[in-house]
């Protein structure tokens, strides 16, 4: 037991560093304030949503449905987040050789890996569950037992999603390890899996429409398919100590069984993942020449496509964008029929909003796809290679931004063209949207690189730590959400006060152009200094 505690302590101390921001001052407070603020902002948003859901539930005295709904939502989010992370956190870790050389059981090594995974998912899960519990307490007079039950629920809730994620992550790693291009295979398998989950989640959306009326049906459905929901609702409304003990027993047993079960395959998969299938062909190596900028962009592109977690994280938003556009194109009539029947809006009016809706979607897609926010950190120790090259730091930085926008713009353009053709956009609107399609990714990626230069994480254990858990990627996501929300709000406010689409698009492009100029000015002034200050 002492060994396990020492191991957990060593691994967690190392991993928790990633929540610290590299700053010149060594004051501990400066390193923890920002993550706490970000956490609170996120929890406040969830709290607002929970309140919104609670109001109709209070009317029909079905407050407990909020708990089951949020358990289900956090289950799906933790599961999706877990699938992204599992392969990176469980397999091919830098400290594999160290841990496996120690006189400890192999299942203990797997336990340490899954425990680390559990702690991250616990923090992530709490962001969704804690505000929902607070809202529930606000509306319902709860007994003391509810607090005890909620504490155990919070602690044990991530177990099932991380077990499923670990199993799926192992399957993905096992399948991909059989291929020569295992990273590509891992990316494809992960994307397919995530699309399947999203497909089911979209279908569940039908259930959530007219939430107040369907509350009991939703509750029945969720509690039937997911045991923790059923247990929590049951214990919250009618507490029995036996139910709580059973809940704890089931979760801990599942955790132990999963570790013992996975440990039989884990080490074989891990060594397969580490193995590299090399080419046996004796063909001559190719000596090619490129201009430095082209070569830098190619290097960035290679890094992007060779890191499954990087490409899945950044590319998934773009894939969803295209799928969303195709879905709108194919199902527009079906989607609009129900709104038109209610009589509040005509088909022509809906069609007139399409350019603004498209711009809003482009805005969200661009700002939520921050590729550059990880690109400096992903250099890791090889950052010194870049610093030793006879190339201006600004060229290196711009090559990263260029690569990111070259990935994003063509995909967004495909979506634009599909909607231009379907809805016969006029030339001016099309042109303004194309300007936005180029401008928004440029701004998003410029912001991303500035944030990453300011908050680099150069000593990450693996790509997952950089892409999913670093301060830089978190700030980029939250900032992106903020900018998108403000822009979309501005656009729809513009519609409300009667501005034409052309004027609105012109105005927002103008505002974003000014923002881009300011960012370029800032980047010219600061980014080289920040680049040179990064010491690896």
């Amino acid at each position, binding site marked *: 037991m002492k060994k396990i505690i020492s191991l957990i302590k060593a691994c967690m101390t190392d991993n928790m560093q990633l929540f610290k921001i590299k700053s010149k001052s060594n004051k501990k407070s400066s390193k923890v304030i920002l993550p706490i603020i970000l956490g609170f902002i996120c929890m406040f948003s969830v709290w607002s949503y929970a309140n919104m859901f609670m109001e109709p539930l209070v009317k029909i005295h079905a407050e407990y449905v909020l708990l089951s709904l949020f358990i289900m939502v956090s289950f799906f989010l933790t599961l999706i987040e877990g699938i992204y992370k599992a392969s990176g956190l469980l397999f091919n870790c830098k400290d594999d050789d160290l841990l496996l050389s120690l006189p400890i059981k192999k299942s203990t090594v797997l336990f340490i890996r899954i425990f680390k995974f559990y702690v991250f998912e616990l923090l992530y899960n709490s962001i969704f569950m804690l505000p929902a519990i607070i809202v529930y307490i606000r509306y319902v007079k709860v007994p003391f037992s509810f607090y005890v039950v909620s504490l155990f629920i919070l602690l044990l809730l991530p177990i099932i999603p991380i077990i499923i994620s670990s199993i799926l992550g192992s399957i993905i790693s096992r399948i991909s390890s059989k291929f020569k291009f295992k990273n590509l295979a891992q990316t494809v398998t992960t994307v397919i899996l995530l699309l399947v989950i999203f497909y089911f989640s979209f279908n569940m959306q039908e259930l959530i429409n007219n939430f107040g009326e369907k509350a009991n049906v939703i509750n029945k459905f969720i509690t039937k398919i997911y045991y923790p929901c059923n247990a929590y609702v049951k214990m919250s409304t009618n507490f029995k100590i036996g139910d709580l003990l059973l809940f704890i027993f089931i979760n801990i047993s599942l955790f132990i069984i999963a570790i013992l079960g996975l440990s039989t395959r884990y080490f074989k998969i891990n060594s397969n993942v580490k193995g590299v299938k090399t080419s046996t*062909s004796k063909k001559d190596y190719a*000596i090619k*020449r490129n201009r430095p900028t082209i070569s830098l962009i190619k*290097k960035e592109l*290679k890094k992007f496509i060779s890191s499954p977690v990087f490409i899945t994280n950044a590319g998934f938003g773009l894939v969803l964008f295209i799928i969303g556009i195709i879905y709108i194109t194919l199902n527009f009539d079906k989607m609009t029929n129900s709104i038109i029947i209610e009589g509040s809006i005509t088909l022509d009016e809906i069609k007139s909003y399409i350019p603004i809706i498209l711009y809003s979607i482009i805005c969200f897609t661009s700002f939520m796809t921050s590729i550059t926010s990880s690109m400096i950190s992903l250099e890791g120790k090889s950052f*010194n290679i870049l610093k030793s090259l006879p190339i201006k730091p600004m060229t290196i930085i711009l090559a990263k931004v260029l690569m990111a926008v070259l990935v994003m713009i063509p995909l967004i353009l495909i979506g634009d063209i599909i909607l231009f053709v379907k809805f016969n956009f006029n030339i001016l609107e099309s042109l303004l949207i194309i300007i936005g399609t180029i401008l928004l990714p440029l701004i998003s990626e410029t912001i991303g690189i500035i944030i990453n230069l300011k908050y680099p994480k150069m000593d990450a254990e693996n790509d997952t730590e950089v892409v999913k858990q670093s301060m830089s990627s978190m700030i980029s996501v939250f900032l992106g959400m903020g900018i998108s929300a403000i822009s979309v709000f501005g656009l729809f406010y513009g519609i409300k006060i009667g501005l034409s689409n052309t004027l609105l698009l012109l105005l927002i492009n103008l505002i974003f152009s000014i923002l881009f100029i300011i960012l370029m000015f800032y980047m010219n002034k600061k980014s080289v200094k920040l680049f040179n200050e990064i010491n690896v």
Partner: protein
Amino acid sequence: MIEIKNVTKKYGKKKALDNVSFDVNDGEIFAFIGHNGAGKTTLIKAIMGIHDFDEGDIIINGKSIRDKGIECKKEMAFVPDNPELYENMTAIGFINFICDMYEVNIDERKKNIDKYAKMFEMKNNLNEPISSFSHGMKQKVAIIAALSHNPKILIMDEPFVGLDPKAVFDIKEVMHEMVKEGKTIFFSTHILDVAEKLCTRVAIIKKGKIVKVGTMKEIKGDKSLEKVFLELEG
């Protein structure tokens, strides 16, 4: 020629380099020795423009690394102690990338890559991904990449670590060849026997300060370099 003039580098209050000054002349093999954490890598990274320094200056062939960083770097090549290369690239992909950065024309890069790949017995491995290589093979790739653009100055941090005896022999041959062409080699090492046999001049650093610098004869006299080093360390 490398001129290191009163270079001081601080990490917080600790001086990693304390008023370091010495010159490395053209056509010289210069060894830089010191115990772990003495400041060898810090100085090498400062020479390469990887890390900035607080005081002093470093002049590469008459140009300051601070003011004319790009021009200085064009004349140098760097082999790091721990070859953290781009694992997702093939060896030839990485070497081509480095050549692109130094804008090496296709004939010159072909000549150099062929020559050094053959010398370091890597010809059959250049199409393989770097992630499949051992430490020694990565070190060889880093060396081939460094030599592929014909640098005037070669800077190496612990170049012999992890290399097989044949590769160590080959590097020494390359060093002699470069020096014959009037080029400069500056490297750090812990292997004192190699330094003693190979180098024209040597500098010993202790806790960020240069404690001795001079020709091999001036430094060791009749003693062995190992003995002199241990006496200085003691």
